[in-house]
C-alpha cells in the first residue's frame, strides 16, 4: 500500500500510460463491492467444452475445490495457502512503481494458488473461471518446480450489465525445465474495467506459451512483465484483440532477456471497429549478459472504421552485441486487391471481409503450440469459432 500511496494512479503524462486514459476508473475507486451472487452464470466461451479441472471464482473468491487432482499438484485459494504457509508471500511481487500491482498487493481479496511438484505433468488443463459482478482485486500465484508441466486456462466474464472494476495480478515462477501453456479469454461485461498484470520469471530450459483473446470490457489493460532468467529458455507471447464501440484495450509487454541463448517471440493482431482504440507497447530488453538472444516481436492492426485508432510503440533496448532482434509494426485496412480476388470468385462482400480478417488474426492464433496435456487444435478451434462469431456480428452490423 505504501508504494501505491506514493505513486498514486498513473496519468497519461507518464510514458507507460501515454495512450490509456484512466478517467472511467475514478467512479469506481473507494466504492465498496456489491454483494456477490452465490452462483456464477453458466460459462460460455472457447474453453467451456474442454475436458479439464475447473476452479470457479466469484469476484475473486474460490467457490469449489478440485478433489481429483493428481498427486504433486495443489490448486487452492491463495488465502488458504498463505494461512498455511505465510512465507509464500515472499513470492508475490510487491509492485514497486506499478500502481495497479501495488494496489492489488495491498487490497487483494483472493485468487488461486497453484503448485506443481518436480517432474509432475498434468494430463489435462487446469481451468480458472473468473466470474465477476463487482469490484475485485484478484491475485494468483503459480509455481512450477523443476520439469513440471501444465496447461493453465483462464476465462474472465461477468454479469452482462454489471459495471465493475477487476484488477488481477498473477505471479508465475517457473523453475528449470518447467513448461507452461497459458491461454486466456477476456470476455468481461461491456461496462467493466479489467486490468491484468502478469509477472513471470523463467529459469533455464523453460518453455512458456501464452495467448490472450481480448474482446470484453470497456477499458482493459494486459500488462506482461517476463524475465527470462536462465539460458536456452523459449518464451512465446501472443494475442488477438477485437474491439468495437468505445472500447479501449492496452497491451503492454516487457520481455527482458537476462541470460544468454534464449528465444522469445511475440505476435499480436488487433482488429478495431467503431471508435475503439487499440494500444500496444512492447519492449524487448536485452541485458549485457544475454548474448545469442533471438527476440522477435510483431504487432499488426486492422482498422475497420474511420473512427478507430491504433497506437503502437514497439521498443528495443539492446546492450549485448551478439543478438538477433527484430520487430515490426503495421496498421492499415484490408487489402482491396485481396477483397476483389474473393469477390470475383463469387464470395459476397461480408463473407470475403470475414475471411480476410480471420486469416489476418489467425497469424496469432496459429502460434498456439499446445502440448502439456492438450492438443493445439483443441484450443485453436474454439478460439477461431469465437473470432468467427464476433466477425459475423460486426459485418452484419456494418455491411449487410
Amino acid at each position: 500500500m505504501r508504494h501505491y500511496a506514493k505513486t498514486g494512479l498513473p496519468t497519461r503524462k507518464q510514458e507507460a500510460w501515454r495512450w490509456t486514459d484512466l478517467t472511467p476508473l475514478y467512479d469506481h475507486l473507494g466504492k465498496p463491492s456489491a454483494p456477490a451472487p452465490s452462483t456464477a452464470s453458466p460459462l460460455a466461451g472457447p474453453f467451456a467444452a474442454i475436458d479439464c479441472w475447473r476452479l470457479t471464482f466469484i469476484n475473486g473468491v474460490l467457490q469449489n475445490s478440485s478433489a481429483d487432482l493428481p498427486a504433486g499438484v495443489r490448486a487452492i485459494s491463495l488465502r488458504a495457502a498463505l494461512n498455511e504457509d505465510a512465507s509464500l508471500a515472499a513470492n508475490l511481487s510487491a509492485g514497486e512503481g506499478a500502481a495497479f500491482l501495488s494496489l492489488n498487493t495491498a487490497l487483494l481479496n483472493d485468487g488461486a494458488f497453484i503448485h506443481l511438484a518436480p517432474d509432475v505433468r498434468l494430463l489435462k488443463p487446469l481451468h480458472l473461471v473468473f466470474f465477476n459482478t463487482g469490484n475485485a482485486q484478484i491475485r494468483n500465484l503459480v509455481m512450477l518446480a523443476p520439469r513440471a508441466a501444465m496447461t493453465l486456462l483462464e476465462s474472465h466474464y461477468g454479469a452482462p450489465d454489471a459495471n465493475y472494476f477487476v484488477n488481477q495480478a498473477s505471479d508465475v515462477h517457473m523453475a528449470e525445465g518447467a513448461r507452461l501453456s497459458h491461454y486466456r479469454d477476456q470476455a468481461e461485461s461491456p461496462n467493466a474495467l479489467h486490468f491484468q498484470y502478469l509477472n513471470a520469471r523463467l529459469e533455464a530450459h523453460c518453455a512458456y506459451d501464452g495467448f490472450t483473446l481480448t474482446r470484453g470490457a470497456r477499458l482493459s489493460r494486459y500488462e506482461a512483465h517476463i524475465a527470462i532468467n536462465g539460458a536456452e529458455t523459449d518464451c512465446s507471447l501472443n494475442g488477438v484483440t477485437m474491439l468495437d464501440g468505445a472500447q479501449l484495450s492496452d497491451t503492454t509487454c516487457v520481455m527482458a532477456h537476462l541470460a544468454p541463448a534464449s528465444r522469445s517471440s511475440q505476435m499480436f493482431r488487433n482488429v478495431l471497429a467503431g471508435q475503439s482504440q487499440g494500444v500496444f507497447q512492447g519492449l524487448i530488453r536485452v541485458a549485457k549478459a544475454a548474448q545469442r538472444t533471438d527476440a522477435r516481436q510483431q504487432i499488426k492492426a486492422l482498422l475497420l472504421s474511420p473512427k478507430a485508432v491504433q497506437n503502437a510503440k514497439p521498443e528495443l533496448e539492446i546492450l549485448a552485441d551478439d543478438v538477433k532482434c527484430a520487430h515490426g509494426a503495421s496498421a492499415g485496412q484490408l487489402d482491396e486487391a485481396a477483397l476483389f480476388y474473393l469477390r470475383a470468385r463469387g464470395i459476397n462482400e461480408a463473407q470475403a471481409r470475414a475471411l480476410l480478417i480471420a486469416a489476418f488474426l489467425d497469424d496469432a492464433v496459429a502460434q498456439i503450440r499446445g502440448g502439456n496435456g492438450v492438443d493445439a487444435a483443441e484450443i485453436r478451434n474454439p478460439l477461431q469459432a469465437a473470432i468467427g462469431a464476433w466477425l459475423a456480428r460486426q459485418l452484419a452490423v456494418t455491411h449487410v
Partner: protein
Amino acid sequence: MSARPETITAVAESGETYKHGFVTEIESEFAPKGLNEDIVRFISAKKQEPQWMLDWRLRAYRRWLTMKEPKWARVEFPQIDYQDAYYYAAPKGFGSGPKSLDEVDPELLRTYEKLGIPLNERMLLAGVAVDAVFDSVSVVTTFKEKLHEAGVIFCSISEAVRDHPEMVKKYLGSVVPYADNFHATLNSAVFSDGTFVYIPPGVRCPMELSTYFRINAANTGQFERTLIIADKGSYVSYLEGCTAPMRDENQLHAAVVELVVLDDAEIKYSTVQNWYPGDKEGRGGIYNFVTKRGLCRGRNSKISWTQVETGSAITWKYPSCILKGDNSTGEFYSIAITNNHQQADTGTKMIHMGRNTTSRIVAKGISAGGSQSTYRGLVSILPGAEGARNHTQCDSLLIGDKCGAHTVPYIEVRNPSAQVEHEATTSKLSEEQLFYCRQRGLDTESAVALLVNGFCREVLQHLPMEFAVEAQKLVGVSLEGSVG
C-alpha cells in the same frame, strides 16, 4: 558470431584523431557571462534589430524562465549551468558583419581553409555557395550576387531581419513556435546568427547552398537559427556542416531550423554533423540539442532530411516533417555513428495531416566503444490523412559488447485508409564478412569501414555528391576510433 576482440579494440582505439580540433587564436568580443534580459537586449542591439524582433526574443526568454529542461531522452549529462556560459562571442570588429571578404581577418579565412572550406570565391568549387558562421556571427556569405540574379535570397539571418523584415516576421516561428520546447525557446531568446534562404516561385536554385558552423571560443554556446522558404514550384538543396575545437568542457549547441515549403516545391536538407565528440574517456565534446522541423504547407510539396551524425558528445534531435499539404512527401535518411562515450538519441517525426501524404524513414545506427545510440521516432496519421502511407526501417549495428542500441518508435493511426509499416533489426558486424575481406588482403580497419559503408549505403546515396564523398570518409574515420 560477434566481432572478434581485436576488431573491437581496433575500433575503440585512437580516440584522439579528431582532425578539426584546433583552436583559432583570434581576438573575440564576448557578451558578459550569464543569461538575463540585458543579455538578450545586448544581442539584439549588437545585431541592430528592430523593436519587434527584440520583443519576440524577450517573450521567448520570459517563457523559457518558466520551463524545465526535459528529461525523457536516453541521454545522460550533468545539469547544465545556463548562467555559466557566454551567449555571444564574435571575432573582434564583427559588430554588424563584414561588408566584403577583404575586411575579414585573414586568420579566420585560414581557419576555414584548414577546415577545407575556402571562402574566396575564386578558389571555391563551383556550385556551392557558403554561409560561414563562426561562433555567434556569420563571417561571410559567398556567391550572393550570382544567387541574387536568380532571385534567390541567401544571407545571414541578421541581415534578413534588417533587409527582409516582412518575410522574417511572417515565417519565423511559424514552424517552431517560440514556446515549442526548452532548447528551442532558449534559442528564440538568444539566437545570434544563422542562415536565411528564400527561393522565389518556379526557381530551381542554381547551386547548392551551404552553411558551415564553427564553434571556436571557449565556454560559449552556439545558438543559430536557420529559416528556409521554398515558394511555389521551387527547389533547393541545402547542406550543413559543423566542427569545433577539442576542449575538456562541454559546449552547448542549441539550434533551430525551420523549413517552409509551398505548393509543388522541394527542400533537400543535408547535414554532416562532426562536432567535437569528446575524448576517449568521454571528457568534453558538444551537446548538440537541436530542433529541426519542416512544414509541407502546399500541395505536392516535399522535404527530405538526410543526416550523418558522427560527432558531438550528445546528439539529441529529431528533424521532423509536418505533412499538411495534400500529396506532400517527407523523407528522413539518417546515419548515427557513436563511439567511445558518445550518446545519440535521434530520429524523426512524421505528422500526416493532408490526403495521400507519404513518408519514408531509413535510420541506421552504429554503436561502438561504450556508446549508446537510440532511434526515437513518431509516425502520426491524423484523421484527415486519407490514403497516407509510411514506411519506416531502422537498423542498428553493434560493434563491441559495451555499447547499446535502442529503438523507440511511436505509431499513432487515426485513419483506416492509411498504411503504416515499421521494421527494425539489430545485429552485429558479421565475422564472416570481415573474414572474407581480410582474406582478400584488407586490414581489419578498412574491412570494418567497408562493411559499415555498405550498411549505410541506402542513406549515403541520398547525400549530394560533395557531401557523399566526405561522409563516406567520415564513416571510415569515425570507426578508426575517432569521429566521422
